[in-house]
């Protein structure tokens, strides 16, 4: 199974721009399925980006974030070739992680 | 074509004026008559592949009301469904030629 995380990080001068797309249902727990039964809440609780052992972006999420979330931000202090580690954990205890090279 | 239009207008008028439900309360026999007429019209619309979603849902509402013993409502819904089905049949027949007026040439 392919990773649930797509990430692209590009350094431009001293700023690194990061874009990430995560495949996740992000069920709120308020939606019913075709049979009329509630789909239990299933959402990412924490999303974390680490670079050179330091957290550069940590998000504590709830159910208000859309399905297959997309995140874009930039930070300073990294250079081309550094590793950027992305990880998430959800309310059911599932998680995924990926490490990308900054280009 | 003109006849079905006339029928549609007549039914619409009946409903608009609130004449459809007669003075006495409707009974199961009234419902059965109204429902089978509506069902026949809906079948014809379906065979022309011009069924409307509202016809289907109004027919279902008629059946539900009848199952609950509310024949006034059931008869009214069945007549409405019949009018909708007749209108969709009219649409199907007139569109057999009318679509050509829309064509880009």
């Amino acid at each position, binding site marked *: 199974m392919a990773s649930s995380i797509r990430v692209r990080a590009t350094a431009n001068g001293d700023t690194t721009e990061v874009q990430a797309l995560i495949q996740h249902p992000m069920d709120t727990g308020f939606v019913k399925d075709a049979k009329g039964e509630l789909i239990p809440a299933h959402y990412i609780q924490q999303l974390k980006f680490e670079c050179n052992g330091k957290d550069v972006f940590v998000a504590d999420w709830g159910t208000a974030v859309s399905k297959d979330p997309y995140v874009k931000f930039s930070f300073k202090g990294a250079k081309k070739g550094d590793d950027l580690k992305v990880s998430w954990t959800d309310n059911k205890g599932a998680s995924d992680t990926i490490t990308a090279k900054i280009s | 074509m003109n006849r079905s239009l006339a029928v549609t207008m007549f039914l619409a008028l009946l409903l608009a004026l609130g004449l459809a439900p007669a003075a006495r309360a409707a009974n199961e026999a009234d419902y059965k008559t109204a429902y089978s007429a509506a069902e026949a019209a809906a079948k014809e619309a379906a065979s022309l592949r011009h069924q409307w979603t*509202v016809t289907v849902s109004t027919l279902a509402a008629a059946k539900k009301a009848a199952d609950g013993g509310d024949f006034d409502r059931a008869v009214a819904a069945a007549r409405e469904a019949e009018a909708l089905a007749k209108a969709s049949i*009219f649409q199907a027949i007139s569109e057999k030629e009318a679509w050509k007026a829309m064509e880009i040439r």
Partner: protein
Amino acid sequence: MKAARTSILLGSLSAALVALALTSPRVVAADKVDPVADAKAFQNFFFQKFPTVKHEDFVNGPYSMNEDMKRQWQEKEEFPPYEFALDAGKEMFVTPFKNGKTYADCFPNGGIGIRQNYPYFDEKEGKVVTLELALNRCREANGEAPYSYVKDEMASLTAYMAFTSRGKPMDIKIPDDPRALAAFENGKRYFYTRRGQMNFSCASCHVQSPGERIRAEILAPALGILNAMPIYRSEWSGMGTTSRRFVTCNSQTRAVPLEPQADEYRDVEYFLSYVANGLPISGPGARP
């Protein structure tokens, strides 16, 4: 309650009267089927209606009509929402069936770069065969259960096949066969025929009003609309196939949709694809 119902009824009645009014004045003279002339007239209509839109840009639907949406879309395309479906489709495409064969065995050129040739007219069957239909027939011929025509696996597979064909001009052939001409004509009839309580045809939105708003959305032009299929729609928060688009369009006009891959849908896909001949494949697409 009664007032509301009455107004709906009167609404459909007046729609019917409008339809009647349209019938009478215009008597159509030539009923000869001439797909070449039809395609030319169809393309010219859009080229003249939107003189500033580049011809190959029509396949990008509403984005070709609205600058603001176009900028948002271009940014989105750097990280397109159909990417997961595309990867899944590629994996499915190369994974062998239980009998060891793959989809590649069912298609010319191993299924790569052929999207622009679908749908085609199968002279043996005497009917139009769409890509979705061909995929499910391929599965069944190899002892696998067919997929749902509207989403998920089918959308992933067609997304991958469209992706390998991006930029190739749509190239639909109409063989010299009266049944093929009849299918084209039937597709055209379906496209222009008003249906549903709203009394809308496909053309009511996608010929008369492309670039206009329908509620919060911008309507796509009919020209090249299938070149972008399948699509990720934010509204669906998922992928949808050509079949799904036809079915939902029908129900939005309050017409009971036909079953996916009904003859009419196959024919209208044939018509719409043929009149878009020469315009590039841009699928899989992303739409709001």
